[in-house]
């Protein structure tokens, strides 16, 4: 087994690390307090190419394999999660649908502008009455001539205020359940489209999550993504694809917390010696490091399997579950090792602790991941 990354990817990681150190980290406090990423930082991120991570080279993106994408996401995970969520949602669920299911016309219309970051992407599935049970969505899409007319409401849509392009799931045939759902590419300029208020959140400041209202929203028929009736399956595939990237970002954040915690433990003196000398602190760090290493190889193995074209539904669910849970445990220990300063907002640790919490909820809760894993096990063993 060869775990080495190519020289280009190492170079990209170094470029991203440089960018984080010099451009993102100095802005982190401001992003957190104002719940807003400065336009200049978004502009600089575009210039660096951070909006084209998932998009094929022929459409102006980087054309990376999943392993390589994860290597970049791991690096991005090392900084303020609100900022990286904008990029994560765009490069993950916000654009992968068009990359995977888009027609050549759809790809050439959307992907180049998404790769450059001119058009930000978002993914709209969740509704007030359909969270974990995503097949229960009620937004309707009725065909009228060469258009579909959409009516309904979406909630918690990441990037909604910034995005131009939305992958939207809506019901085209209410009698067919999950098989009556279709995915559409919706532009914010289509008549009948409205973004609601931006939610106030526990964490992920700088990333905006908002409601969407569709009031006789008109979508041309050429904007059906994939086949009619396959929207639910598409959504599941898009989410499964996003899971490795999500875990890779969690991994980066965990690594950051381990670095900070270990250095702090070696420096902080109590009882005339560094707190690192306390065996319990050593054990916290050893546990963190071991779980992080496990997560790292799980991330790259699942990414590698996906690159081989393997079905990774089960493994991606395991990875999402494990990555989120490890991130939360690591963040909790990081706060504990830092003591009081770990709870103080002048210092980044409490921010990571709050940001970690969402990973167990969005893009499928931990409980739902276990359901997916179990369903796959049943399939394997019942056969």
């Amino acid at each position, binding site marked *: 087994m060869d775990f080495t990354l190519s020289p280009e990817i190492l170079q990209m990681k170094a470029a991203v690390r440089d960018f984080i150190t010099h451009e993102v980290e100095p802005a982190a406090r401001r992003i957190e307090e104002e719940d807003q990423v400065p336009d200049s930082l978004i502009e600089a991120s575009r210039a660096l190419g951070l909006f084209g991570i998932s998009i094929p080279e022929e459409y*102006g993106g980087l054309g990376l394999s999943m392993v390589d994408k994860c290597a970049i996401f791991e690096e991005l995970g090392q900084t303020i999660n609100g900022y990286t969520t904008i990029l994560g949602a765009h490069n993950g669920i916000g654009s992968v649908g068009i990359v995977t299911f888009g027609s050549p016309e759809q790809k050439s219309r959307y992907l180049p502008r998404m790769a450059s970051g001119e058009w930000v992407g978002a993914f709209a599935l969740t509704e007030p009455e359909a969270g974990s049970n995503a097949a229960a969505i009620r937004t309707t899409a009725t065909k009228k001539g060469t258009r579909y007319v959409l009516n309904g409401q979406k909630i918690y849509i990441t990037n909604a205020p910034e995005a131009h392009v939305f992958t939207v799931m809506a019901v085209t045939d209410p009698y067919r359940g999950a098989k009556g759902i279709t995915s559409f590419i919706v532009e914010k300029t289509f008549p009948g489209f409205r973004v609601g208020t931006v939610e106030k959140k526990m964490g992920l400041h700088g990333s905006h999550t908002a409601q969407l209202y569709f009031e006789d929203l008109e979508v041309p028929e050429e904007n059906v993504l994939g086949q009619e009736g396959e929207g639910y399956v598409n959504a599941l595939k898009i989410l499964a694809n996003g899971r490795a990237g999500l875990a890779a970002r969690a991994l980066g954040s965990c690594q950051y917390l381990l670095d900070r915690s270990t250095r702090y433990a070696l420096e902080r003196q109590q009882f005339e010696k560094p707190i690192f000398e306390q065996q319990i602190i050593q054990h916290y760090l050893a546990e963190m490091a071991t779980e992080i290493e496990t997560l790292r190889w799980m991330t790259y193995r699942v990414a590698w399997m996906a690159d081989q074209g393997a079905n990774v539904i089960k493994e991606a669910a395991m990875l999402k579950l494990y990555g989120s849970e490890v991130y939360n445990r690591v963040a909790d220990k990081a706060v504990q090792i830092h003591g009081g300063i770990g709870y103080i907002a002048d210092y980044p640790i409490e921010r990571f602790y709050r940001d970690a919490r969402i990973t167990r909820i969005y893009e499928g809760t931990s409980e739902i991941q276990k359901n997916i894993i179990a369903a796959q096990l049943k399939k394997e063993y019942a056969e």
Partner: protein
Amino acid sequence: MKILVLVKQVPDTATKIRLNPGDTAIQTDGIKWVINPYDEFAIEECLRLKEKAGGEVVVLSLGPSRVEEAIRQALAMGADRAIHVMTDAVIDSQVAARALAKVAQEEGYDLIVTGKQAVDDDQAQVGALVAVELGLPQVTVVIELNVDVESRRIRAERELEGASEIVELPMPAVITAQRGLNEPRYPTLPNIMKAKKKEVKSVPLDSLGVDTTPWVRVEELTLPPERPAAKILTGEPEEAAKELARLLHEEAKVI
């Protein structure tokens, strides 16, 4: 315009330098290698000149195979192609200059740009020696560069101690870059991908037919003495200030 930029790979400035007794070179295992920071200013200036006047920027580097990483970085910043003079030998500034000048001569350039010095051995000789080898005019420690492509003349501001000097010279010429000349760009991710496909020509040092006998040999290398531990003054501010003044005067001898 055809521009050549000379790029040296050096240990990252944050490297902890390690030496074993009797060593005449630093221990290189585990070192992170980077482009010499002054050469980054040189690369950036070349790219800006090309963006204004057209033409091409060629990177020229000398050293073992690890140097390719620095070359790829320069290509990712936007240089067009590269020449790598391969050698594992320890060479001095004179040999380096001869080899670089030989390669430069073979293709002919309008401008040769490099950093004012390399931050590894800080000799600040190679740029100047290349100009001498080629018999070209040179301007060193440049903080502002204006090139008039039509008249083929250069106007450069160079830094002197406490002053600056403006000089004019004809092309072709050799320029060495000082901090302040510009702000080097980050290589963008798409450009890193594109750099993969750019040409890097590898030329063994021995094939150049230059005299590789060094003029300078390192006899001995020692680390600077350890800095004594910091003194922390405690007590009443008035007392501490008095003690500080005494120490600055008597021990540090700075006031």
